[in-house]
């Protein structure tokens, strides 16, 4: 009975549906506040205390608005895709090495499942743009996939570096080992940098917001989405923001420990990464797609390879 309750708690409260959605909204608020402060503005102020309910108001408003399916679009795919992306990111959230559920779904290799589930929304963006049958959607979708080829390889290499260092492909094992060896962070600092840049590109945020560049192609893949479906896409994006940051926190920053300490540690480490990503969004301007591909393959990919070599040398010399 107790076990059932624990599983239900994990599925629906934390790290399940409600807790994650709440954290996603909180992350959106933090992001907007940091962005505004860097621009000498104050950001949302009057929706709840210091505007903390602003993301909630946005989502409720989108949920209550008219839901348009354009006549030209492929109806089924257009309506189904936002849910697919949402489901993928929620499943990824359950794989995080935190909470009761981890005793059941943690297995060697779940790091890869996590990365695939986080990669799925990009494919969904592409398909969503394609099936909305609008020029901007198609352009945005094609750009999303082109961008995927640029950042995915350096990002994967960077994220797999801790796996190599700790000798495990299991998220909970990696975080446990890197928590007991704090110097590991220094050893893969380069990989951490590449992973942060890769996550920013995965989330399609400035300076890598090429697929949804609103000054060029309106809204990219989401151009034709409105109402409920846009709300789900918006939530998916914010969820990915949290889950991606939490993944990086668990493999690079030593995870979340065990017991009651998990939740505060989760908040601190995840929001530290969210803070870095928000600062990057505020400080940079958008790159062109060719600049991004050049940057990823000329600098990011060699950097991750170098990091890989460094780890192998450490392993061979039996320092780590």
């Amino acid at each position, binding site marked *: 009975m107790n076990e059932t309750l624990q599983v239900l708690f994990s599925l629906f409260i934390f790290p399940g549906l409600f807790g994650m959605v709440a954290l996603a909204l909180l992350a959106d608020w933090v992001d907007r506040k940091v962005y505004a402060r860097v621009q000498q503005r*104050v950001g949302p*102020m009057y929706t709840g205390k210091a505007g903390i309910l602003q993301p909630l108001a946005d989502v409720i408003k989108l949920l*209550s608005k008219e839901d348009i399916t354009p006549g030209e679009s492929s109806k089924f795919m257009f309506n189904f895709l936002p849910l697919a992306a949402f489901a993928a990111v929620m499943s990824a959230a359950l794989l995080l090495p935190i909470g009761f559920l981890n005793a059941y779904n943690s297995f060697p290799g779940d790091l890869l499942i996590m990365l695939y589930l986080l990669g799925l929304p990009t494919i969904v963006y592409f398909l969503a743009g394609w099936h909305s049958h609008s020029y901007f959607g198609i352009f945005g979708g094609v750009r999303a996939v082109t961008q995927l080829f640029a950042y995915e390889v350096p990002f994967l290499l960077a994220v797999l570096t801790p796996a190599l260092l700790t000798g495990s492909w299991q998220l909970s094992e990696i975080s446990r080992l890197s928590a007991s060896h704090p110097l590991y962070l220094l050893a893969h600092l380069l990989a951490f940098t590449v992973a942060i840049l890769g996550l920013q590109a995965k989330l399609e945020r400035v300076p890598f917001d090429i697929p949804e560049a609103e000054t060029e192609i309106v*809204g990219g893949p989401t151009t034709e989405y409105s109402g409920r479906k846009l709300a789900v896409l918006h939530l998916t994006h914010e969820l990915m923001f949290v889950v991606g940051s939490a993944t990086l926190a668990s493999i690079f920053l030593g995870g979340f420990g065990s017991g009651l300490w998990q939740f505060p540690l989760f908040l601190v480490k995840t929001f530290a990464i969210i803070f870095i990503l928000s600062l990057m969004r505020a400080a940079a301007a958008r790159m062109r797609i060719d600049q991004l591909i050049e940057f990823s393959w000329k600098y990011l990919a060699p950097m991750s390879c170098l990091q890989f070599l460094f780890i192998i040398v450490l392993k061979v010399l039996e320092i780590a």
Partner: protein
Amino acid sequence: MKKSVIARIKEWARLNSLWVLHFNSGACNGCDIEILDALTPRYDVERFGIRLKASPRHADVLLASGPVNHQSAARLKRIYDQMPDPKIVIAVGTCACSGGVFRGCYNIHSGIDSAVPVDAYITGCPVKPEAIIDAVAKLINKVKAA
């Protein structure tokens, strides 16, 4: 008449999160600069949850500036139709209200309301950002009272 809890939550969310689409239907760019001005640190309309959006499908408010000419009338109508309900249209600037100095020209309609229904008019050539914020605040109060 007392509104139900759900209706009140919906109204709260809607009024606190107005996403704006800006459309120039033939303005001289004066009003457009002032609209962008409202987003800058000095006025910062994001305080009220107002955000500038690029796609009409995402927007709640259409800020249209400029006298409507024959070419832009059909496009203005189309953009208005693409916005999901409930939607608000604000005519920004004297030209958008009545046609302004261009009224009576051979190619000019007389203002935004000749193409789409308008909820609020802001005069000025160009409008002041304070006037835009004031109009939005009055409009919010009007929606609340209704």
